[in-house]
Structures are given as structure tokens and as C-alpha cells.
């Protein structure tokens, strides 16, 4: 599904290397987690994969379903099935959440030469999905993320994911800022989407989310590289001991 090889990324504006050779292969239907100290490059990796401006790939490659995505526009990557749940979802005053989602869903369908969803079908679908995430009608009408609480923003990200049904879902600290109940809701939302043809890359600092969304593989990222890869037990080790041992082991 996702194949990242020797990915090197620096900032466009300054001479600062952030990713220093990331290798990661994620098969269809699998859930991988990435953990790692603050500032190790996890969000940068997710942004580079999603196609945000401001980064320069100096070496390496990233393929989605065998296709090189690094040359694609962000919207092309989305249409190809990539989705990033942002660590910090963006507020967009003046653009209604509903309008935004309908535009996005239909733009992707169009890009894939599928028929657009009728207004009625769209409404039915979004109501159903919103309900399971406990997002009320009022939140759907409001401008995108404006005045949403931290937790509401994260749930809104999962709602978008549920509506867009991407193949490759990257979740960047979707658990941060969520209360215990909301975390369960989000995890249920994610688990409901788990499918043979769909993969997840879950960036998190805490084992707790991984209790709900069981990863197949856990990666530890430090200083722009994956320094260790293991099973779910690796997350427990981090939870109990922090990163010191792992960093020392590699050094």
C-alpha cells in the first residue's frame, strides 16, 4: 500500500534537514503506529506525504499502491486514496462544514470518474456517520472547525475520513486532546473502517489509543529516522520506560 524508501526532506526556506532517510513499508489491511520524541519528524513525514508546500525532498521516494505520490498535487493524492487527519486541524471561517465535505466528496468522485453524490444521498450519509461520532447537526452547519473544541476538531477529522473512505489513512496524534469517551468514539470510528484494502498509519505518543486500535507493527522515530520497528509490545515498552533505553540501544 505505502512504500517509503530512504526519504530525505529538508525545509525549503532554510537549510534544515528534518527527515534523514525514512524507510517504511505498510501492507494493505495493516495498522502501523509511529511513536517518537517531540520534534523527531512525525508530522513532517505526514505533511510531506500529503503534499504540503514548504518541504523539499532531497532523496528517496514514496509510493502509494505502486504510484509515486511525491510529484502529485495534494488533491491528486487525496483522490488516489490518501488521507491525513491533521495534528492541528485548520479553522476556515466562512466555509460551512457541510459545504466543504460535499465539495470534497464530489471532487474525489469526479477525479475517479464516479457519479457525484446527490444532495439527498449525501445528507443521509453524513447524518448517519455524524451520529455515530456524536457530532450534532449544529456542528455540521458551522464553519469548518471554527469554534470547535480540541476534541470536536479531532472527531471532525474522523468524520471526514469516514465520508471520504480513503485507502491509506494517516492519523497524526488524533488522540491528543480527546477525553476518554471521545477516544473510544474515535477508535470505534477507525475500527469501523478497518478493511482488507485499507491501511492505517497512526502517529501517537500514548499506548492508550493503541489499546483500542490494535497495531500490527510499531515504529519508533527519532531525529528524522525510523530507529526501531517491532510488534505492539514496543508501544508498551515506551509507555513504561520512555525513549531513553531505545535511543541508547541504537546509539
Amino acid at each position, binding site marked *: 500500500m505505502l512504500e517509503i524508501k530512504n526519504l530525505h526532506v529538508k525545509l525549503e526556506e532554510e537549510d534544515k534537514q528534518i527527515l534523514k532517510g525514512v524507510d517504511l513499508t505498510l501492507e494493505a489491511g495493516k495498522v502501523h503506529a509511529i511513536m517518537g520524541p517531540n520534534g523527531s519528524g512525525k508530522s513532517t513525514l505526514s505533511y510531506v506525504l500529503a503534499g*504540503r508546500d514548504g518541504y523539499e525532498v532531497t532523496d528517496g521516494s514514496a509510493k502509494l499502491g505502486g504510484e509515486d505520490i511525491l510529484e502529485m498535487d495534494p488533491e491528486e493524492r*487525496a483522490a488516489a486514496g490518501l488521507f491525513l487527519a491533521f495534528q492541528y486541524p485548520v479553522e*476556515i471561517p*466562512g*466555509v460551512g462544514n457541510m*459545504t466543504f465535505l460535499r*465539495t*470534497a466528496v464530489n*471532487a474525489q468522485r469526479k477525479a475517479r470518474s464516479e457519479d457525484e453524490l446527490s444532495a439527498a444521498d449525501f445528507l443521509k450519509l453524513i447524518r448517519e456517520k455524524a451520529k455515530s461520532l456524536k457530532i450534532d447537526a449544529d456542528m455540521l452547519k458551522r464553519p469548518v472547525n471554527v469554534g470547535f473544541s480540541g476534541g470536536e476538531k479531532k472527531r471532525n477529522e474522523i468524520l471526514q475520513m469516514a465520508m*471520504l473512505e480513503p485507502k491509506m489513512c494517516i492519523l497524526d496524534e488524533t488522540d491528543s486532546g480527546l477525553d476518554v469517551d471521545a477516544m473510544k468514539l474515535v477508535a470505534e470510528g477507525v475500527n469501523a473502517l478497518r478493511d482488507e484494502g485499507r491501511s492505517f498509519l497512526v502517529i501517537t505518543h500514548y499506548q492508550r489509543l493503541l489499546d483500542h486500535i490494535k497495531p500490527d507493527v510499531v515504529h519508533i522515530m527519532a531525529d528524522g529516522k525510523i530507529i526501531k520497528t517491532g510488534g505492539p509490545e514496543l508501544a508498551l515498552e515506551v509507555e513504561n520506560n520512555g525513549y531513553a533505553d531505545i535511543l541508547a540501544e541504537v546509539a
Partner: protein
Amino acid sequence: MALAKLKQDTTETRLSAMQMPEGGHWSDAARADALSRVRMMGLPTRRDEYWKYTNPTTLTDANGPPAATFDMSDESQLFGDIDRLKIVFVDGVYDADASDPLAMEHVTIARLAEAGEKDIHWAKDMYGTLEIDGQSPVERPLAALNTAFASDGILIHVTGKAPKPVSMIYHHSSDTSDAILHHCIKLESGAELTVLENGPAAARFNKCMEIDVADGAAFHHVRAQGRDHERRAVTHMFTRLGANSTYKSFTLTANGVLTRNETIIDLRGDDAIAHVAGAAMGDGDFHHDDTVFITHDAVNCESRQVFKKVLRNGAVGVFQGKILVQPGAQKTDGYQISQSLLLDEDSQFLAKPELEIYADDVACSHGSTSGAIDEDALFYLRSRGVPEHQAQDLLVLAFLAEAIEEIEDEDIAADILSRLEGWLVRRR
């Protein structure tokens, strides 16, 4: 003091190319007066402070530059689904066949050009008077020129709630048309009227509207100045508001090489409300100037100005907005915001917001901003699969929304919004 040479030459050159309508009309005296005022003031030149940001030359030249007509057949008719009384002008010439009969309940409507002999005293007492009031403290010579030379216009007298809007449709068909229209609208106490205006009007258009709103009356105005690229226009709206009366005006402008829209409002009676809003979208040679002067002359009045402009490819937007609070106009609530969204670095927004306050118990605020598209928002939308141009359109509409929300009638607002969406798609 004698006029500066440049001003005098400009004025005389323009006047020598103009012709007053035939005499024998009750407006003759007002026209003669206006003409002498034009000579006294002189037409604007680019040295005038009030025209610092907008070069008036092509508006004052004997002949304006030609303007090719623009095919807008790809658009459905604006306000097409709204039940309205249509009055059609082609290059400033009344089109009787295309217009509806000039009659409706509580409203008398006449053409200026035809009303000369008729006994409509209200218009005789009004024609040019609000324009004169609006000449101080700032001179507006192009409005006086309009009063002197207007070839036609619509005179509307409203005594109750008008059953439907009066819709003026201005077609442009000749490359060299130079139209001058002057409308007078008088709302008696408690009357209500909506006036719609749309269309490019002429290669060069000078329009003046005088609106007298009596106590408790309400006037609504929605206008769309179309996509016609080469047209030029200077418009003045002079309004006097009685106690408890309401004035709400919204203008949508897309393209047009030069537009100067002046709005002059005098809140004369207590508890009156005046809202003026504008959304403009310009590309390339587009130069759009909103000049607003609101005078608070009474107690507890509210005025509100909301202007938004989206500019790209070197387009220029201008906003000159003033709130003047006269001594004794206590409890004034004045608000003004002007904002521009610059889609590239070549475009420019020039704003001159002004407050002048001579009363102590007032709340006035104003703000002006200029900014680029929010890159984070753009990326967020694109990351969800929305193509870049469509994402940009969404953000442009979001930016303009605050001005469009000023339109009270939902059907009209929806019409304006869909027009705007259509323009956004077509200009790609």
C-alpha cells in the same frame, strides 16, 4: 478663486461636447443651477485629494474610451426568478418594449424625459436637491454634471408598501455609448420599496440616484455591475433619512475597467438605520472605488459599512469611507469595515477610513485589512481532494460572505450568490 488651468480646461472641454435636453421642462432651473455649479467647482482631476486613488480622466474627457460589449449570454438573467417591475435601458435609452408598464399599487412611476409637462411637483421639488446637499463638505462635480445633463431617469413616488421590487436593467450595446441617467425616489412616511439594478449600462455611465426616505419608511437596494470588462462608471447615491427609517444597499461588482461608486447618506431623523455593503471582484485592469460619506445628524442612529474586494492580476481596489458625527448626534452607532483579499502581489488595495466625531456619547469603530489567501486553509481543503482552483473559490466566497449577508431578502441574496459562483467558475 479662479480654477486651476487644468481643471478649467478639463471642464470646458467636457462641457463643449455636451448637450442639454430640450427646454420647457420643470427641471430646467435645476439643470441650469447644476451647470453653473459644475463651472464653479470644475470637474475632478487627478490632483484632487478626493481623487487621489482613482484617476478621473476617462470620466471627464469629452469622449470616454470605447468599450466593447461583452457577451454575457452564458449567464442566466439576474433576478430572473424574482417577481419585479422591469424597466429597461439600452445605452441609457429607455426601451419601452422591453419594460413593464410603469404602474403598481402604492407607487407612481414616471420617466424624467417624459415628465416635463406633467404635474408631478414632488419631483420638481426634489430633482437635484439632495445632490446639492451632498456637495458639502466634499464636492462631487460629476454628480452636478449629471443633474445638469441627465437624458432620462426614473421618478418613483411610494406611498405604501410596494408589492414588488422595481428592477432597472441597463444593457450596453454600443462601443461608444455615453449615458447619463438621474433617478429620484421618494418614500412617504411608512412606505417600503426595493430597487434592483443590474447590467453594464454603457461604455461610459454616469448615474445619480436621489433617495428621500421619510419617517418610518424603508428603502432597500441591490445592484450588480456586470462582467463587461471595458465599461466605465461613476455613480452617486444621495440619501436623506427621516426618523425611524431604514436604508440598506448592497452592490456586487465584477470587472469593469473603472468603477467609482459614491454613497452619500444623511441620517437626519432620530433612530434611523443605514447599511451599505459591497462585494467586488476584479482582475487585471479592474479599478474599483467605493467612496462613502455618512453623516449622523440625529440621535440614536446606526450606520454600517461592509466592503470586501477580491483582487488579482494587478487589479486595484479603493475604499474611502467616512463617518461624520455632528454635534448633538448622541448615541450614534457607527461601524465600518473594509477588507481586501489579494490573490497575488501585483494587486493593490488602497483604503482611507475616516472618523470625524463632534458628539461625546457615541460608539464608532472602523477597520481595514488587506491579506492573501490563507495557505493553511488552502492546503487543508486540497488535502481533502478539492482541486486548487475550487478550493480558492471556496475561500473567496467565504471572504465575501460577510458582505453578501448584508442583503436582507433571502431570494435576492441567493441570486447574488449564485451569480458570484458562476462568475468564479467562468473566469478561470
